[in-house]
């Protein structure tokens, strides 16, 4: 696998609401197999940038290129099926369904999700589903939720929901996984564990783009950081470079 290749490229993307530029001429690259961090104070445009990448909002200008394809105009579900998934900061769970159901629904290329096939090709999807359940169990084990597979999602604690949100993303076997604050709202030990897991997954070729306010964790695991402030990338580099970069502190602690 070519690690140097950029899986996601953003070229001069802008997004404004009224006169306010939430994302202003941002260009960045995420390389395959990398954990890439995106940091910045509140209101710096991180979430808007994420939404733009995911197709939830259309950029006003610029290009978003995923795996060599321009995805500016793709719908969120199309982008998902191309292999880019995300985990929300506040877990988007399906409370009336079991944990396993929550994960299974995230699988891509699943034949049973077509009305005709789910009715008339039952054997086909049931076989596939058995395999998917096994995979889902693996993933649950990976995030330590394997004992809760049949619990109702509404009964999970906040931290467990967070893990479930990540597990859902993994079920889709993504090539690029966008995470919005994976460690927020979970205890520090678990937060660290999550990042360790993510690092394990990079060994399998998965790529992560992560927004995280727990800078200690992010800087420990990420290999590249972009610092966003007021819609503009003000600094980038490896964590140790960022730590020494005055622009980074200016973004976070205010103008001098």
């Amino acid at each position: 696998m070519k690690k140097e290749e950029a899986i996601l490229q953003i070229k001069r993307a802008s997004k404004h609401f009224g006169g306010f530029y939430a994302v202003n001429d941002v260009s960045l690259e995420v390389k395959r197999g990398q954990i890439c961090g995106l940091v910045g104070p509140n209101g710096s445009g991180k979430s808007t940038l994420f939404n733009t990448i995911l197709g939830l909002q259309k950029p006003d200008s610029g290009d978003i290129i995923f795996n060599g394809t321009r995805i500016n105009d793709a719908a969120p579900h199309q982008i998902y099926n191309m292999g880019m998934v995300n985990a929300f900061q506040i877990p988007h769970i399906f409370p009336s369904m079991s944990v396993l159901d929550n994960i299974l629904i995230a699988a891509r290329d699943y034949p049973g999700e077509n009305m005709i096939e789910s009715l008339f090709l039952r054997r086909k999807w049931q076989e596939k589903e058995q395999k998917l359940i096994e995979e889902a169990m693996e993933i649950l084990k990976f995030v330590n939720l394997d004992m809760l597979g049949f619990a109702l999602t509404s009964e999970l604690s906040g931290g467990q929901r967070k893990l479930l949100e990540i597990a859902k993303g993994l079920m889709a076997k993504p090539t690029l996984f966008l995470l919005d604050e994976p460690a927020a709202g979970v205890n520090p030990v678990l937060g660290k564990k999550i990042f360790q897991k993510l690092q394990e997954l990079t060994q399998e070729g998965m790529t992560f783009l992560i927004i995280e306010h727990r800078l200690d964790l992010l800087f420990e695991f990420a290999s590249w950081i972009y610092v966003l402030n007021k819609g503009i990338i003000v600094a980038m580099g490896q964590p140790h470079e960022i730590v020494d970069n005055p622009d980074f502190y200016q973004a976070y602690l205010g103008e001098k």
Partner: protein
Amino acid sequence: MNIAVYILDIIIYIGIFSIVAISLNLEYGFTGLGNFGKVAFFLIGAYTYAILSQAGVPFYLCLICGGIIAAIGGLIISLPALRLREDYLAIVTLTVGEILRLIVKTESSIGGGVWGISVKRAISISFPAGFSAINKTVINAGVQIVLIFGILALCFIVLQLLTRSPYGRIMRALRDNELATESLGKSRAKYKAQVFMLGSAIAGIAGGLFAQYIRFIDPYMFMPIVTFTVWIMSLVGGPANFTGALLGATLVQIFDRGTNILKDYITLPIDPVNLQYILFGVLIILVLFFRPQGLLRESKFTTRPLKLVYEKRRSDTSNKKS
């Protein structure tokens, strides 16, 4: 005096309204689409059946066409309406139902307007002379029960299979959290429109069955109260459970007919019709307060493989213990 015959009539009504109620359960209970215009699709099915059967089309084609046209109607309404907030969707569908009724009422060229339209029974049997009226009625009712419950069983099985499949999982997911479902790569517009079409088609078929059983339809039969009645059935029985729809339809029918019969034997201080509706209102509010999920809950398992895994796991743990 033939109470048995009357019971058969009740059973047939239960059958027809169960079909409408399960279509509402499909839309509302499983997918979260609050369709308050159920009667519109019921009406489309009934009028399609009536008009086609007058033209001599065989009954099964009439039913299928009724379903298809209702599905098309559902698609036309769903395209713009399904992205609406749930209360807007409710108001829009309720209003569309009334517009449709107004049209068939005013345009007498469509289905006789206010004069209504006579409908032939789907299956009419020519009895040899000397058959008693009772026997004829019973046999006719028997044929109707076979027809209606056949279709009910078919719808029930199809929907049961559908909701216990990955497709059903997506439906439930849409109900729980639309945005999350979309972000998991499922086009919510597509799935919602499909479900709405399927639900409308089923309601349309029920409308056809209703028309051929009543043998006469006119616009006064398709008031919003029909939609509300179906909602009562669904909410009482359990919106996310098809057996619940059957239970709800049965309870409402028995309540309706039972109180109507009881009034002949009990002297009430108030008019029985008024009392009936007051009790309906109280019943719904009580259900919403104390049993918002209905009498029957949603099934825990979305698919059969999941259930098998669950059972296997349970037996494994119990084996370990022993």
